[in-house]
């Protein structure tokens, strides 16, 4: 996603990571888009977006998307680190059924507002992980959940290919400044710079 692509208006597929990276496993969705973007190069028809906890402010992007893939931490009542793929009409239900965080109340409303506005994606999928720990402010993913980031990216790739979305592995590492978020928040710097206080 170069600066100019970030401003291009003609994309159709949105890959959206949501959650708060400051709250341990709540950062899963954001870390997945970070990893996906680092591994693969997408064309201008795809937006790979770190949506954070923006709630209703994500509505304009969701409305524009014809295909929407979401990464998030979801309470499936499974073992921590369990990965699930949810597709189609089940997605809004899972976003609302067992909320691990306030951002999901917001995002469920984004989806229903998109219905109300008459612009809902034709295809929708959710790659979710069962979180282990949320209550660790400033913390990173737990090992069990972190180990699922790459498998989650692989799952997402299969979904995207099934939708006919094209992308290729990056031939060179992503240059600085082109990540999905500021470099200080990239997982390496974020973890290395954690304050050593109780």
């Amino acid at each position: 996603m170069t600066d100019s692509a970030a401003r291009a208006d003609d994309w159709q597929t949105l890959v959206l990571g949501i959650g708060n990276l400051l709250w341990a496993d709540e950062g899963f969705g954001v870390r997945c888009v970070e990893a996906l973007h680092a591994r693969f190069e997408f064309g201008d028809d795809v937006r790979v977006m770190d949506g954070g906890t923006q709630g209703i402010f994500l509505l304009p992007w969701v409305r524009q998307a014809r295909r929407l893939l979401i990464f998030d931490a979801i309470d499936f009542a499974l073992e921590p680190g369990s990965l699930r793929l949810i597709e189609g009409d089940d997605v809004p239900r899972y976003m609302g059924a067992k909320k691990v965080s306030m951002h999901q109340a917001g995002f469920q409303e984004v989806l229903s507002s998109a219905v109300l506005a008459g612009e809902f994606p034709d295809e929708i999928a959710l790659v979710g992980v069962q979180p282990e720990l949320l209550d660790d402010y400033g913390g990173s993913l737990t090992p069990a959940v972190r180990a699922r980031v790459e498998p989650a990216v692989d799952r997402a790739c299969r979904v995207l290919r099934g939708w006919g979305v094209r992308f290729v592995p990056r031939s060179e590492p992503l240059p600085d400044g082109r990540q999905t978020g500021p470099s200080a928040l990239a997982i390496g710097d974020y973890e290395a710079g954690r304050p050593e206080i109780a």
Partner: protein
Amino acid sequence: MASTVTPNGFALDDSGQRVVVDPICRIEGHLRIEVNVDENNTIRNAVSTGNMWRGLEVILKGRDPRDAWAFTERICGVCTGVHALISCRAVEDALDIDIPANANSIRNLMMLAQYTQDHLVHFYHLHALDWVDVVSALNADPRATSELQQSISSWPKSSPGYFRDVQGRIKRFVESGQLGPFANAYWGSPAYKLPAEANLMAVTHYLEALDFQKEIVKIHTIFGGRNPHPNWIVGGMPCSINVNETGAVGAVNMAWLNMVSDIINRSIEFVDKVYIPDLTAIASFYKDWTYGGGLSSKNVMAYGDFPAIPNNYTNDSFMLPGGAILDGDLSTVHDVDPRDPEQVQEFVTHSWYEYAGGDADRGLHPWDGVTEPRFELGPNAKGTKTNIEALDEGAKYSWLKAPRWRGHAMEVGPLARYLVAYARGNEEIKDQVDGLLSALDLPITALFSTLGRTAARGLECSWAAHRMRDVFDGMMANIKAGDVATANMEKWEPATWPADTKGVGFGEAPRGALGHWLHVQDAKIANYQAVVPSTWNASPRDAAGNIGAYEAALLGTPMADPSQPLEILRTIHSFDPCLACASHVISPDGQELATVKIR
């Protein structure tokens, strides 16, 4: 307690029935309100409590101050850009960095766009549903709705066929059973006063505002490079400007600047032809709902914002002035200095924290702030620590601290800003306020109410949209004169910094006064404290027993039916609460559905 009068002049009586609303819906973060009502269901005691807040020092201590904006942008999903801006200002203050004129203009444009969008979204998508009955809109006559629309505005989308189509769309949505954004409301409550046609008009504009939101965020994308988390940089703005169509790829070019200009024009049109006429029309049906004033007729405060002169954060420069009004005396506006250790202080007497050593009831200036949790319920609380049935407000009862200005509880936000600007004689704002009051045939004291708060936000939205035009034109003149600088990198390298320095960044988030205080030692953050607007407004009692703005605003309000606390939602929503950065919650299953308990 039974019956008492607080030092800030509010009579409290907790002898009546207790009503617990937990959480308050349609807000960011977790807020719980408890009230006692008398035999006429009028609120006689109010308790506001927010969930846990860990303090920014937990995530920022030891980090590079140049990165702080990126972290603070993530503490909340609503005020992202505002925290980033205030963080940059705090670091620039600590390191004595001046930003270029274009950076100041772009920051003002980003924030004015944020005001316009936030206020629109708040009014239509969060607050209007406290006044507008969606279900009643289904019974409206589209022809009469069209006549109503044409009588109040020249907005072109006003034909009977248009309103009939929208009505059909809403009907299908409601009939599909997924209420979505319309869930958690009290449709049909006798507290709703609008005729069906006004309800349909307002719901139609709810949908138009959803459409318009798509446009206005493009300003952030263009200048911030990415959205929904735009880029910022200490020393200026990280975008380059190139109006000659040669040079750096990705620079802000003329095509994009023209797009910004066009969005500004459309923002002005939408706010002035849709939002303001709606606000006036809705308010005209609620003129006798005069409740909710609380602190606004006594103590209000603004730091001020939108510097017209780059790097000058004083009232000589601010387009929205700062100041404090005490005891409702509009003839004297006190200057507010966020650096003065005697002015802004936080108290924890009634908060679940402790100040060890010395007087536990003292106030601490944010530069000396500490966030040390101490969770305990008072002797009169009911329930357990994990299932609190009723709080004991005589003891510690909130995870929010109690910020005070010179010991006074203050209301912050659009109404506070408008009162300060009005009292300081700002002509534009006086004209706006006097115009609206005269259209509604109301005295100035009508501002001291829930509706006054809602009206000030609408007027400020219009003000912000018009100021975007001025700021944009000023920036273009500067660029055409040959100045394209957007960042000052002279003091980027830590070697140029003092070994030990403090800074403060302050300004006005859409929902009120926001300050970040930091201490930098050996090029690392040693302490970082934020005092956010909802902490001022949602604050618990302080050491002296002064109640906060939410608590004060609820007193004296009659409730039609305590099991449908629409009146509480109305007043609390009028503050545009955003508890996400004031608090954090891991909400258990189902807790997001508001529960109302009457004990």
